[in-house]
């Protein structure tokens, strides 16, 4: 067994949160540069220019990229030969989240669902984090992190189609979700699509799909083809940057597909705004 200290995990999590709050990852920045170069609408082009200028200011002056600094979402793979010494892994991630959000002057955005009371004093600053665990072989902890904003989460949808709906049904559903969302999720967006599994598996897959590097190609050729088809269809909607009208509504479409029940075809669409703050570390 390899021992990893609780405090080392806290520090690692704290550091990625501070970094992601102000530094737009290279894949997202590059995708926006390409979008600006290829966008046909002068209004949308100007919006993307502002988004890139904002990213430069945020990085240089260590200011949060957006005032919506999100809920902290993690996908964690714990190696079966790892022993966390000094506390629970979940507690370490939450503690690191709280420290990172405080240290980088990010916003505490968690609240009670009905009273809407902020939970920063009751549970912790921007706590609890949303953590998805998996156990794998090995002696490492693999942590994927994203700061997930509310505007793009609000337009996300999941459903279960009839198997006969097939790829055409999935394309129609994704198009409908993005068309209805219009300017609200801060386009140009990344579209995560979870297919198959069960209702909740599709939703979690659509979230995880957003963590993939923008510009990367799906390893499954069939899914790569479907991603391309969806990308074309979404960009035909004409929504453009911040909904001002344009040819670049999506920066990328990422699919994660799973085996499913013979009776069902679950599909979930999780939308990510242009400020795609995500990273990946291994401890």
């Amino acid at each position, binding site marked *: 067994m390899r021992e990893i200290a609780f405090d080392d995990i806290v520090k690692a999590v704290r550091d990625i949160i501070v970094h992601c709050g102000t530094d737009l990852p290279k894949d997202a920045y590059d995708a926006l540069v390409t979008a600006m170069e290829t966008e046909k609408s002068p209004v949308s082009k100007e919006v993307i220019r502002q988004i890139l200028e904002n990213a430069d200011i945020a990085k240089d002056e260590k200011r949060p990229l957006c005032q919506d600094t999100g809920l902290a979402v993690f996908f964690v793979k714990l190696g079966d030969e790892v022993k966390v010494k000094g506390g629970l892994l979940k507690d370490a991630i939450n503690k690191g989240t709280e420290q990172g959000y405080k240290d980088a*002057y990010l916003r505490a955005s968690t609240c009670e669902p009905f009273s809407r009371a902020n939970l920063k004093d009751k549970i912790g600053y921007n706590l609890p984090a949303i953590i998805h665990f998996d156990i794998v072989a090995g002696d490492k902890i693999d942590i994927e992190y994203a700061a997930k904003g509310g505007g793009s989460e609000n337009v996300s949808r999941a459903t279960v189609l009839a198997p006969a709906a097939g790829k055409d049904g999935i394309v129609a559903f994704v198009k409908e979700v993005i068309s209805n969302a219009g300017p609200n999720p801060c386009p140009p967006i990344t579209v995560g699509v979870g297919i198959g599994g069960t209702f909740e598996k599709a939703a979690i897959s659509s979230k995880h799909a957003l963590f993939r590097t923008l510009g990367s190609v799906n390893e499954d050729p069939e899914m790569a083809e479907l991603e391309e088809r969806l990308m074309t269809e979404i960009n035909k909607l004409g929504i453009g940057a*911040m909904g001002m009208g344009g040819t670049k509504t999506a920066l990328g479409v990422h699919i994660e597909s799973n085996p499913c029940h013979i009776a069902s075809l679950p599909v979930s669409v999780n939308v990510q705004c242009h400020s795609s703050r995500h990273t990946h570390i291994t401890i």
Partner: protein
Amino acid sequence: MGQTYYLTTPLKEEQTRQLKAGDIVYLSGVIYTARDAAHKRLVDLIDAGEKLPFDLEGSIIYFVGPTPPKPGDPIGSAGPTTSYRMDTYSPTLLKHGSKGMIGKGKRNQAVLDACKEYGGIYFGATGGAGALLGKRIKSAEVIAYPELGPEAVRKLEVDNFPVTVINDTFGSDLYKMGRAQYEIKD
């Protein structure tokens, strides 16, 4: 692209009635922040016939919940939040003298109608450009509801704050116009 204007608040009706969807406006002067919870309180005060924490006449209301300021800064990152959550309240504020709102995303028909009737403008600021927009805010002061934290009402002094006219007083909607121009139908 539309015309470019440099305007100082408070805005007058003859100024707002000349703006058209797609125009770029650089706003200077005082604007006020409010989100869902603050809007509800403001409208409750109007309904009760009580005095508001600021003068609505000619005012611009910015839908924003900023990040905490770093030491020495007036405010943190401060980009617009999604506006539809304020749709229930905006017509009342426009009726009582407010001349504009800054946010992002679609508004409902009642807001568009109120813009036409009372000479109001719905401005869009670039969502996710919180660092850039925060720098155009020269001072910030909480003037009501400090217990709401990021949602408190703040008086902001802005300098050439960049916004785009989404909905004008003629009933036009930049989101619809822009999309119609670039949508490819099968």
